[in-house]
């Protein structure tokens, strides 16, 4: 094992790690924002919206993320240059950058998987609690914000932690669309130093550390949630 390349590339690994964290956090925030209504309409209806949400979850969960990523980056991305005048518009620098496409793909993936989790979570909240909330005069939105959503999230918090770890482990796929996050940097090292194992082992170590931090963070948050003492 030769590690003399490490000091030289360490700053780039730190930049890559920062990009990984950005990808992860932004996708989880956007994805969860979408997952809540996707889960909710499957429980409350109306029927056509519920079917739409169910179809969305099935398609997202039934196709590889790599294909979704390529479909969005190469497929959808290839449509934009044909729109007249778009090269001169203020949007063009963003449309040329790979990062927004990766965010879009990962957010859709998080929305699909977590929409399914949230469906079960919303369904799992006892009816009596919702009726009680309505009975004391809360508006439907208040019921959702004060009772239904907090109780649903409380029930599936450990599941969501596991799902976010899976999302973290999916971020290296972004390297295939030219985003040099942590794994992408290790590929650069591999190509420039002709060392196969050391950069891969190092990046594996980085991901293990990130997972550990994520698990500790979510365990801390989980303990913050008041639990009913049974």
């Amino acid at each position, binding site marked *: 094992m030769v590690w003399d390349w490490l000091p030289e590339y360490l700053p780039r690994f730190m930049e890559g790690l920062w990009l990984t964290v950005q990808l992860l956090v932004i996708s989880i925030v956007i994805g969860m924002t979408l997952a809540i209504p996707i889960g909710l309409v499957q429980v409350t209806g109306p029927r056509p919206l519920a079917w739409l949400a169910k179809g969305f979850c099935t398609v997202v969960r039934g196709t*590889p993320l790599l294909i979704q990523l390529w*479909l969005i980056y190469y497929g959808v991305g*290839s449509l934009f240059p044909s729109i007249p005048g778009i090269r001169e518009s203020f949007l063009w620098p963003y449309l040329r950058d790979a990062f927004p496409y990766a965010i879009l793909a990962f957010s859709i993936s998080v929305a699909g998987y977590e929409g399914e989790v949230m469906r079960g979570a919303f369904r799992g909240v006892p009816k009596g609690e919702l009726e009680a909330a309505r009975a004391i005069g809360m508006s439907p939105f208040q019921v959702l914000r004060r009772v239904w959503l907090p109780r649903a999230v409380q029930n599936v918090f450990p599941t969501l932690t596991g799902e976010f770890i899976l999302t973290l482990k999916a*971020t290296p796929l972004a390297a295939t669309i030219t985003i040099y996050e942590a794994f992408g940097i290790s590929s650069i090292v591999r190509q420039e130093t002709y060392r196969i194992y050391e950069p891969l082992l190092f990046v594996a170590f980085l991901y293990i550390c990130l997972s550990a931090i994520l698990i500790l963070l979510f365990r801390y948050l989980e303990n913050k949630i008041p639990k009913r003492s049974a």
Partner: protein
Amino acid sequence: MQNVFEVLAYSPPGWGGALLRGLLNTVQIALGAYLLGLLIGLFGAFGKIYGGPVLRWSLEIYTTLIRAVPELVLILLLYYAGADFLNFLLESMGFERIDINPLVAGIYVIGFVQGAYSTEVFRGAFYAVPTGQIEAAKAIGMSSWKCHTRVVIPAMIPFAISGLANLWLIATKETALLAVVGFSELALVTKQATGSTKAYLPLYLAAAGLYLSVTLASNVIFGAVERYYRRGQPVQG
């Protein structure tokens, strides 16, 4: 953009046939890897349950590390490490270096990853089998082997089946990552097709549709298998 039907036509210059052959490779690898994973998982689970401290700890390290590292990193690591290790063995025994069949390599890499997950599924299922059933089997004089093949493992299946169905779906989707090491399964074939035709959207949509059809078909099959193995069990939920 070219006509969608021309691009997706079965025979060349259309890419439909190539995509279907890619799909066949994907299914082959997924099937092989899944079976290898089940085998590793079964041994891993019983190793964790009955093994001594050394075996238990090494299995614990195996399942923890595999599940903590991104699949893409694992696939590259296992791919290179497996090839180097095999060639090292062959050379030390005085044979020539060989190029590994990509199908075998893909099965071994994904199967090794799947094994870690199915170990945990089987371990959970083992503890769900009521102890009374195992004691009853022992009481009527079954040997340990018979007790496991006739009672424990069949009784584990209903508890394991939903986890195993999930693992199969993960296996089919994980094969797409083999595109990164250059194995021509569906994802890589699609990428090559888009490279030559520039018809990005229709080709990727077609690939996604093929993966989706595998998933939907698997759901039907696993549903039937689950119903079969749950027969005679009390209805839950």
